[in-house]
């Protein structure tokens, strides 16, 4: 354990408020390596070989140094056993337990923990109660907490979102579920006018600690209207924060952070990611809403992504590694505001940026991100920023056509090859 912490660099003392002080370590493996950036949070590794999981959360102050080379070495080691070190890690597992679950279960766990912690937290949405949520995120909660705390609403998005806002203004902490993010288009009036603006127009008198969440994104042949990506429409609204989760680990952490935040937060989930399985710590943890996640550190090119495209990027990364490239993959997680520090550090290192997103080409998150990076880090770029986004096409039903509207790993590989020439 000492060796690893030396590698971490200047470690400031754990903050007393940190709820997670486990030092579980896990060996990096060929599976996804999720390591948050050095400023803030989690080192999560997954190994099939030793069947362990480790997460270390260090409350570091912003501006902390990046990882040292020895630490990088440890992270890049993969496969194979580690002998005594492995045994050591195995012992850690007994001391710091974990459990495996699916993404929607992780969301539910986060939700349930917050509901347990604060009786003012309530859920409202269509079919969240008796039905358990159309994606089972709220399964079992209505039986446990009652029909008023997990409220089945009639099909009136604009009004029940407004109702959530009114409840938030008067002391509750509601979570409004859109059965599909696309349905929240009907709630745009309330989200834009009231959710985002009321804190300001009331001169700071009323806070709106609401969480609006739901699945969006392109699924499997769901048709145009159920495959919308609303992050681009909401990003201009002043006064709200937007986050997108991509793994069970960050889903639970972001859910908890969003509920605890005093700002209105929109949490974007993805229809196809609900059944992702991962091991997460038993101990309580909360992630930061404003920080990005370092998925795979690298040297040649920065790939910025979020939500489902993270997996397409990681698939492409495998191919790229075989071809000799070393991409740095960052899951931006916070869609509004952008974590310019993590992104900036990466750009300063690699000088090439590729943005891979599922949002539409025109006016999407990638477009904003391109503008933000150009504005702030123009001098560090060796090549123009390339943004791969979905085509400006209503998502077709046919499987083949749908596949071509969304960015596929092959396109990512060729974009990287072109950028790195």
């Amino acid at each position, binding site marked *: 354990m000492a060796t690893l912490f030396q590698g971490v660099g200047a470690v400031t003392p754990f903050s007393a408020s940190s709820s997670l002080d486990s030092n579980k370590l896990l060996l990096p493996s060929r599976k996804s390596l999720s390591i948050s950036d050095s400023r803030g949070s989690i080192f999560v590794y997954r190994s099939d070989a030793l069947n362990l999981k480790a997460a270390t959360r260090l409350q570091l102050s912003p501006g902390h140094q990046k990882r040292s080379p020895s630490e990088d070495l440890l992270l890049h080691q993969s496969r194979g056993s580690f002998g005594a070190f492995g045994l050591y890690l195995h012992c850690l597992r007994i001391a710091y337990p974990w459990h495996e679950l699916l993404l929607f279960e992780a969301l539910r766990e986060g939700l349930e923990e917050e509901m347990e912690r604060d009786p003012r937290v309530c859920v409202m949405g269509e079919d969240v109660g008796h039905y358990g949520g159309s994606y089972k995120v709220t399964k079992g909660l209505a039986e446990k907490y009652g029909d008023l705390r997990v409220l089945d609403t*009639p099909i009136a998005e604009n*009004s029940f979102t407004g*109702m959530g806002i009114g409840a938030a203004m008067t002391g*509750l902490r509601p979570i409004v579920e859109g059965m599909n993010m696309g349905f929240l288009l009907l709630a745009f009036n309330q989200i834009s006018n009231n959710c985002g603006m009321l804190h300001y*127009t009331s001169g700071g008198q009323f806070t709106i600690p609401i969480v609006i969440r739901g699945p969006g994104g392109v699924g499997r042949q769901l048709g145009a209207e159920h495959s919308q990506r609303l992050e681009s429409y909401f990003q201009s609204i002043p006064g709200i924060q937007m986050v997108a989760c991509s793994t069970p680990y960050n889903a639970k952490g972001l859910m908890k952070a969003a509920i605890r935040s005093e700002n209105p937060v929109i949490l974007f989930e993805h229809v196809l990611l609900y059944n992702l399985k991962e091991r997460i710590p038993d101990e309580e943890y909360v992630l930061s809403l404003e920080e990005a996640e370092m998925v795979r550190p690298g040297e040649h090119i920065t790939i910025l992504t979020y939500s489902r495209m993270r997996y397409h990027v990681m698939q492409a990364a495998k191919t790229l590694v075989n071809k000799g490239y070393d991409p740095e993959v960052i899951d931006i997680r916070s869609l509004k*505001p952008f974590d310019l*520090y993590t992104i900036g550090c990466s750009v300063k290192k690699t000088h090439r940026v590729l943005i891979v997103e599922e949002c539409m080409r025109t006016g999407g998150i990638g477009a904003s991100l391109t503008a933000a990076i150009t504005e702030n880090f123009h001098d560090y770029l060796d090549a123009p920023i390339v943004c791969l986004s979905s085509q400006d096409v209503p998502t077709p039903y046919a499987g083949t056509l749908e596949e071509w509207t969304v960015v596929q790993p092959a396109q990512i590989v060729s974009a990287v090859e072109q950028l790195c020439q």
Partner: protein
Amino acid sequence: MSLSATKFVHPITAPPSTRSSDKPLFSTFFGSNHTKLRFNKPIVAAQRRSSSAASTSSPVVAVSDVVKEKKLKSASNLLITKEEGLVLYEDMILGRFFEDMCAQMYYRGKMFGFVHLYNGQEAVSTGFIKFLKKEDYVVSTYRDHVHALSKGVPAREVMSELFGKATGCCRGQGGSMHMFSKQHNLLGGFAFIGEGIPVATGAAFSSKYRREVLKEPGADEVTLAFFGDGTCNNGQFYECLNMAALWKLPIVFVVENNLWAIGMSHLRATSDPQIWKKGPAFGMPGIHVDGMDVLKVREVAKEAIERARRGEGPTLVECETYRFRGHSLADPDELRDPAEKAHYAGRDPITALKKYLFDNKLASEQELKAIDKKIEELLDEAVEFADESPLPPRSQLLENVFADPKGFGIGPDGKYRCEDPKFTQGTAHV
């Protein structure tokens, strides 16, 4: 709808010459208005003290009928005591004088933008809000100055908000259409019609939640949602009527039917103009009341608010009222028939209350004049306060965008952007 429609000729049937070309089109496509104008019999059973007592019984009985029964049994036939009367009078005078002062200040260039005045509708605001406790919530629309004043927001704060000064109730950031007060539980102030109704439903839900889930004793706050006739064609209205009735939320929906939505007559916009009827369709009582008579409004308000407080659910109250001025100070108000305006001017709620107070020897001329003078002085002081208040400084620009300013994110230097001094100065770009 009441008898009033028969007493004047509606503009549709006698259109001004400029609009005559439109007439045939509208009468064919938008349904004939003629039948609706001929309200020979009072269809609604809620006209109190109506001499023509040909009230047919509606499926939902107006509470005012029940109240009439009770009142006849009481010793005195008076609806209010002297103190209550003076309180009502003072509140209505405050509303009226304040709005007149607003108009003056607007034309002197002290306030800008859209200003919507409430002259003529004071009875509704006073009649309802004066029955509330401080903890009860009020949600209004853009015509919210008088709701704010009735709820207790000091006139000087409202005036300086209108002037856009930092001492306004919303620090100058809301303006005429966005009056908020946490202290007085005024939840706004909304520019889009219908937008406040879900917020009001949420406040009522909050109250029910506190009572049933958090088990707070005495959590029986009632919410009043004020909105107009135009809003009653909006989806949010119906969606919230449904939800409020479904969950028996402690809310009263108060429709200030002043017959006009800017230049759109209620009769031209609504297939069934009797808004109170829409209550029973959702399972709640629908009441129509003469909104120019503060005492009638008060009686209905009492019943509706107490019903909500007991947990019996929402009520829809349609107050027939009228605005003496245009929709806003930018509206030339040329469309409305002068005869209609004259008719309602004759039913000025303040004059009516004055007459009631004199007739029943509840107050003397001097007492009322003293109240007038007091309010005038209060308003002069409010204007002076607003005039002398400072304008919001640049540093205020970014202060209230987020409740937790970490929401501005992390800057390229690794620090949270809100720690950047440019944020406190208001010169940062977000």
